[in-house]
């Protein structure tokens, strides 16, 4: 499609499916910020998304008039806070199509969720020589916890390859599975290449081999959504702040029977049945994994974000984002000396690139002076950078509030980079 036709296609979606990006932008205070005297063009939602008013207001209300600790006080305010917190769990469960809210554990972020599984699943079910299969395009959050486990238990980490376009190679992956494979832990969507992985097939193959499967949904849930029962995964992790929710809140989905077979991660209040100095018994999931006072208001804020996103429609947002992606690929691809890193068949709205003669850091600094915010660096995926033969990339990642003009602004700002670096 030509530039004009992609733009036209975006506008033609007028009708009953009109995606009113201007109305959505009006819901996000950050969309009217000025940076260096220019309107902010925010192309770093992959690192963390901006927050809509409904989330900010919901959290404000929770702190002002609905706040007390949860699960403890026998008084109205604590009951109200508990109810809101548990309702947030229900909202998340429904969003992921979990069988029960009990399958939703609130954590601090996606990283904490992976660490929880590494610790609790690792201790319960893995011993020296057992294998975890990850992929070449994992975020450090889904690499380092397994390395820590390797150092403690002597497990083996196997790495499923990708091709030069960034496609996940299902056949090669299948060859890595064997009797020692205990867990498959793969990203749902690469935060660098945008690759959406074939999670249903991965889960099927993992289960065939007798392994459990975890997906890192930090990016995937935002751009593709997740139906945990359809995919039949054992664990799925994500982080609230990339889904237009607050920081400090993450989710671990885990099948109930499996979770109840795992030992706790951290010990403390709220997760116990009976404590004596000789012996303590633990509550069932999710309480077992939520030691101490949880991120109460953050959970409520996350639920507000999910309500907001589902109110607009995750599928409609995804279609809009893919229009942005196509337009960005086309416009950036036409720039002399620019290389797009990652052209997989299934790709979320994440476009990494390099520009001949200009380091990604310099690119980011220069275009920031034009109000354009992109991420530059290794994106917490150093092994993937090596695989792609780059030290770093610049990355534009799109969110529900971006518009085609944002791509134009990026392309325009990149001309300044070319002016400087010749």
């Amino acid at each position, binding site marked *: 499609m030509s530039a004009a036709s992609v733009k036209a296609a975006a506008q033609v979606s007028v009708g009953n499916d009109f995606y009113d990006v201007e109305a959505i932008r009006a819901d996000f205070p950050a969309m009217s910020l000025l940076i*260096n005297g220019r309107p902010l063009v925010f192309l770093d939602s992959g690192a963390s998304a901006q927050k809509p008013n409904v989330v900010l207001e919901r959290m404000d209300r929770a702190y002002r008039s609905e706040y007390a600790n949860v699960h403890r006080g026998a008084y109205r305010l604590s009951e109200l806070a508990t109810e809101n917190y548990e309702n947030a769990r229900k909202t998340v469960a429904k969003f992921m199509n979990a069988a029960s809210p009990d399958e939703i554990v609130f954590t601090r972020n996606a990283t904490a969720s992976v660490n929880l599984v590494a610790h609790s699943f690792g201790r319960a079910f893995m011993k020296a020589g057992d294998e975890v299969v990850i992929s070449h395009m994992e975020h450090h959050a889904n690499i380092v916890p397994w390395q820590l486990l390797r150092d403690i238990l002597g497990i083996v980490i196997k790495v499923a390859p990708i091709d030069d376009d960034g496609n996940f190679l299902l056949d090669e992956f299948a060859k890595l599975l064997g009797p020692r494979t205990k867990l498959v832990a793969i990203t749902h969507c690469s935060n660098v290449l945008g690759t959406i992985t074939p999670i249903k097939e991965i889960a099927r193959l993992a289960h065939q081999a007798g392994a459990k499967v975890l997906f890192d949904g930090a990016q995937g849930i935002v751009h593709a959504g997740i139906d945990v029962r359809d995919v039949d995964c054992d664990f799925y992790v994500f982080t609230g702040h990339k889904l237009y929710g607050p920081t400090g809140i993450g989710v671990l989905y885990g099948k109930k029977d499996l979770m109840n077979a795992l030992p706790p991660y951290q010990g403390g209040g709220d997760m116990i049945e009976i404590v004596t100095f000789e012996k303590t018994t633990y509550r069932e999931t999710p309480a077992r994994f939520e030691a101490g006072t949880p991120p109460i208001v953050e959970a409520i804020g996350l639920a507000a974000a999910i309500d907001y996103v589902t109110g607009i429609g995750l599928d409609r947002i995804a279609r809009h984002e893919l229009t942005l992606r196509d337009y960005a690929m086309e416009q950036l691809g036409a720039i002399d000396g620019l290389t797009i890193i990652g052209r997989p068949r299934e790709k979320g709205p994440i476009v990494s690139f390099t520009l001949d*003669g*200009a*380091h*990604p*850091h*310099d690119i980011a*600094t*220069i275009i920031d*002076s*034009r109000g354009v915010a992109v991420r*530059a*660096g*290794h994106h917490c995926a*150093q092994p993937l*950078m090596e695989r792609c033969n780059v*030290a*770093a990339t610049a990355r534009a990642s799109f969110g529900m509030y971006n518009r085609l003009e944002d791509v134009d602004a990026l392309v325009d700002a990149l001309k*300044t980079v070319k*002016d*400087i*670096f010749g």
Partner: protein
Amino acid sequence: MDDDIRELYQEVILDHGKHPRNFRHPGDANHEAHGNNPLCGDRLTVYVRLGEDQRIEDAAFEGRGCAISVASASMMTDIVRGKTVSEVEALFDDFHKMCMGEDEGVALRGPEEDLDKLRVLSGVRQFPMRVKCATLAWHTLNEAVHGGATTSTE
């Protein structure tokens, strides 16, 4: 174009960034250190030949990084040659102050001629995230002369 950007990316810097001086691994270096900016993945190795009188006889580097970190390493390796370790320390201290914007009204210790050269990099003061890029080579040099004895020659 934005003035701060123009100041950051002056011709001299672009030139050093594109054609770094002393970009090599001298076989007779007796000290080296690796510098790494974990935030962005910039990596440098600084090589030094240190004389018995604590004078830097040769300095060079290899690695990859942004225009600022490469230009800084390039200029630094030129400037420190022939200086003693304590002279280099004083200069680094001055340079650090410049990059942080803390040099106003402060007496700097290094030779004016060197300070003038280094001043072109002080545009990073407007870009807090980039200060580390400008100082990476200097931190690495510091490490090399104080810790990173490598070799054989001694």
